[in-house]
């Protein structure tokens, strides 16, 4: 497996920081939206857009691009922030999130924003679309890779397993799914709401190659993606174990931050009027690199 150079890891860490800052700022501005999932997936997004994906921000419909399907659409603030930093549009535009007339809809809408591959929000339908793309591209002898980003909570949905079954039967080598295994969903911890484990065994039983990785470890994530691309007889599921709210300590591992933006969340650590500034301060404190206009 290729090993990322230290410089590359540093660069990706810096990108992930910027992405976290931008998404927090866009959520503060929007006054609604999801915090925990986007923060938890910032590292995965940084790695994909700044190292893994074959894509061109200036030609979003380039036919040779890899496809990134975001199934759990509610974490779109992290995708918007990442796309902005990758050059699809200005970082300034992320402040239009969820506002009337915006291209950055509350849940991602393909035809609003070039660079999005699907429209998503209602959970459980992204893997099906990724499977459809993988089957169709394979029919045409194309080599593009389809990455499907999913939540753990959407594994409650039957459609996810319908798609998993089909992908296994079709032995889709060109499909790489990455599950955000952050153990939370809106109503609580996943294993309390609807137990999902053993996820690894379930996917293996459906004919998938499964890799467990730390979702904030660029080396592990990158190696897993390389391994997935090298497995030709099966689709691959990378279970990325992440910390929901990663980077903002007062949100971390707390399911109550699943669907709230800073300024609208639980007040046991900070009152609402301080949550936005504190979130940005914590990011800065954590990494020592982020400047904030909210100081």
């Amino acid at each position: 497996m290729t090993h990322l150079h230290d410089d590359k890891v540093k660069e990706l860490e810096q990108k992930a920081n910027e992405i976290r800052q931008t998404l927090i700022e866009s959520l503060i501005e929007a006054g609604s939206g999801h915090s925990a999932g986007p923060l938890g997936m910032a590292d995965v997004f940084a790695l994909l857009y700044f190292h893994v994906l074959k894509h061109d921000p200036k030609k979003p419909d380039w036919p040779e691009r890899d496809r990134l399907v975001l199934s759990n659409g509610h974490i779109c603030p992290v995708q918007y922030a990442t796309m902005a930093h990758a050059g699809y549009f200005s970082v300034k535009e992320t402040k239009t999130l969820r506002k009337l007339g915006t291209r950055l809809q509350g849940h991602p809408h393909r035809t609003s924003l070039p660079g999005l591959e699907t429209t998503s929000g209602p959970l459980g339908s992204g893997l099906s679309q990724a499977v459809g793309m993988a089957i169709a591209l394979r029919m045409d002898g194309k080599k593009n890779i389809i990455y499907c980003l999913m939540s753990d909570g959407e594994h409650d949905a039957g459609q996810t397993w319908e798609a998993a079954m089909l992908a296994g039967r079709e032995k889709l080598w060109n499909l790489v799914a990455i599950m955000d295994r952050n153990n939370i969903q809106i109503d609580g911890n996943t294993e309390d709401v609807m137990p999902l484990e053993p996820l690894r065994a379930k996917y293996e039983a459906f004919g998938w190659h499964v890799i467990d990785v730390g979702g904030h470890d660029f080396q592990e994530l990158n190696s897993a993606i390389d391994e997935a691309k090298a497995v030709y007889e099966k689709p691959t599921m990378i279970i990325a174990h992440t910390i929901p709210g990663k980077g903002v300590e007062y949100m971390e591992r707390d399911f109550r931050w699943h669907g709230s933006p800073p300024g609208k969340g639980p007040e046991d650590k900070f009152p609402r009027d301080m949550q936005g500034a504190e979130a940005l301060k914590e990011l800065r404190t954590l990494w020592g690199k982020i400047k904030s206009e909210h100081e």
Partner: protein
Amino acid sequence: MSNPKAKLVKDLLDLKKLAQAPTRDGYGFGLVEAGKKNKNVVVLCADLTESTRSEAFKKEFPDRFVEMGVAEQNMASVAAGMAAVGKIPFISSYAMLSPGRNWEQIRTTIAYNDRHVIIGGAHAGVSVGPDGATHQAIEDIAITRVLPNMTVIVPCDAVEAKKATIASVGLKGVVYLRFAREKTPVFTTDKTPFKVGRAEILWDAKVSPLHVAIIACGPLVHNALLAAEELGKKGIKVRVINNHTIKPLDEKTILKAAKDAGALVTVEEHQINGGMGSAVAEIITRNYPVPIEFVGVRNRFGESGEPNELIEHFGMSPKHIIEAVRRVIKRKPAQGRSASGG
């Protein structure tokens, strides 16, 4: 009399001589034809390959056929994914399941996502027969026509079904094609005009003014023709319109009918709530209000029985259409009543 421009079959009203075929047969033939014309056409089917008539395509193009198993929700979104990379997918199942069970997937991942996917819904209507209400889709027109980016087509016979199937390849967005299980009269021909979005006048009284225009869709168009013939014998002058495309609706033809006749009867094998008749009423009330009577299923579920028995039982036979015509004539404003024809 039959409109000569419609080029219908010779023995139009002779049930003994008319050929009979289910509209789903036309879908099957149309799929193969569409597959030959366009290499991007693919067919997905949810474990109903024979009865949705997808089998012929599977035999002809095995590499472009995907068996989905009993998974209609997955099928809709997989089709959206295939369309995203250039395929033109047809998804085949029973209408109750697709667009029934998978409606949200159709809404979000196909319609709102603006993908070109064609939904072939077989076994629509109560004429499914002995299988009973669970398998009789009589809500499908309502749930599809409400969606933006959608075309809804209900072919009147197997010949028209084939034309609609082939034509849908060239459309944009989502297309819903509604088919029936039971054999019904084949009364249009290869030469009968068919254009998506244009209703066709199949029958028109020789002399004006008209008393009533009957707007029908699906195989019941033939019952409307039988009713028109009977009414004509009693001096009631009727126009029959085959309104195969429910969305987008041919407002011009429908409004002209309302103006020419001053009263309408709609006929569909579907709930009268939200169906084709409702679509007609929506444009009539906005533009040229006239009395309308609705022939269809009245806010209840279907049941087991023989197809013809069920059409009779649920009030959609020629007799019921004639009764609706008489009712609507009575509702016409005073100046129209003198021409009620008894």
